[in-house]
């Protein structure tokens, strides 16, 4: 299995399509940019056109849009309470964007933008930044209560507070790395097993017989990856709701 033939990492390479450079910084329109725009267009198009008839009794596709709307609405209401509903557009956009990006990434030859750490990190920073800005704007220094759990003995307080601060700071990292690593690992695994099928197939009759096993694995993994693609979007949205809950109700543990 030579590297030039099956390269499981090649799918993550960012290629320039339209080179753009502003002030010495490379802002080229790349394949990653193309799929970001495609994700935006596909998700918006789906949600827009399935609801364009505004049927009182929804069809299947309109039901999908309505279900995702209500799914996120109930998730946010449970996670952050009714005060958290002002973040509904943000959580809904994040969920739909990540879900669509993950699903588009499952199409062969398509670029998976959520397998780029900078993309998931930017989305995580967007969430944590919103939590910080809204928390301090709404509660002032009272937002710092989020680091002080209620009912902790005074002597343990310095320890607990430092742990809480560390866990807060690690949130954007865990949030971004979870999504990034899942998408990256899944795609590499798929590619590797699919590569086995191709390379074993060149080894004659015995190889073709042996290629059945990785083929089964590839099919099974493809199903698993669709699950992961949904699950990671869901996890991202749930954690976003939890973090937003801190901004809405600091110290409300």
């Amino acid at each position, binding site marked *: *299995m*030579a*590297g030039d033939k099956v*390269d*499981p*990492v090649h799918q*993550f*390479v*960012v290629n320039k399509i339209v080179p*753009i450079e502003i002030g010495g*910084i*490379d*802002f*080229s*329109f*790349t394949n*990653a*940019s193309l799929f*970001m*725009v495609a*994700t*935006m267009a596909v*998700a*918006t198009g789906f*949600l*827009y056109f399935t*609801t364009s008839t*505004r*049927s*009182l009794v*929804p069809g299947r596709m*309109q039901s999908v*849009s*309505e279900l995702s*709307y*209500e799914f996120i609405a109930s998730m946010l209401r449970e996670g952050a309470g009714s005060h958290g509903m002002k973040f*509904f*557009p943000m959580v*809904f*956009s994040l969920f*739909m*964007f990540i879900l669509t990006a993950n699903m588009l990434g499952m199409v062969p030859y398509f670029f998976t*933008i959520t*397998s*780029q*750490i*900078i*993309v998931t990190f*930017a*989305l995580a920073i*967007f969430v944590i930044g919103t939590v910080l800005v809204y928390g301090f704007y709404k509660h002032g220094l009272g937002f710092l209560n989020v680091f002080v759990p209620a009912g902790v003995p005074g002597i343990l307080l310095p320890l607990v507070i430092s742990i809480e601060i560390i866990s807060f700071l690690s949130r954007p990292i865990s949030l971004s*790395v979870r999504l*990034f*690593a899942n998408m*990256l*690992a899944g795609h*590499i*695994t798929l590619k*590797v097993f699919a590569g*086995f099928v191709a390379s074993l197939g060149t080894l004659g009759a015995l190889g073709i017989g042996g290629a059945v096993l990785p083929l089964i694995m590839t099919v099974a993994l493809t199903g698993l990856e669709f699950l992961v693609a949904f699950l990671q979007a869901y996890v991202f949205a749930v954690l976003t709701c939890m973090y937003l809950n801190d901004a809405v109700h600091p110290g409300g543990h």
Partner: protein
Amino acid sequence: MFVTAAYAQSTTTEGAETHDAAAGEVHTETGVAHEGGHGSGVFPPFDSSTFASQLLWLAISFGLFYLLMSKVVMPRIGSILETRHDTIARDLDDAARSKAEADAAVAAYEQELATAKAKGNAIAATAREAAKSKAAADRTSVETSLNDKISAAEARIADIKAKALADVGSIAEETASAVVEQLIGGKVTKAEIASAVKASAK
């Protein structure tokens, strides 16, 4: 996988990996990971030269997506759901109102039925009373007329009886006079015969 790839990237040194068919999947993968960076020699997701462009285009596409969601799509879905909710609530109200109307109609119908029944009973009772009294009056009139007839008949019978009895006297007188004529051949006065008959009749 992430850790493996990152670890491989940071630890494998140039040329350490030989791309051997027998090297196994992990070696192949990490070796490629090491070389896959298209010139820059970095694992592609960690290639910081692409970060600026990715951030810019993510900001553009996600920002636009956020705007479209919050200004167009979400209000629309929200209004669809609200309209449906309102319609269902209104339909339920209509149904409840119709049911109340139907209940009222049933109650009114039963009320009317009860009054009609009572009225019917009253009419029947008066009719029965009238019939009864009429029958009684008829009976008494029939009875009186019958009594009249009976007494008239009785009077006639008594009359006839008296007449017959009187006739019996005259027949007896005639018979007696005829018998006397035959027997004695002489004439007897009527007065004598009558007194004789009267005396024998006693």
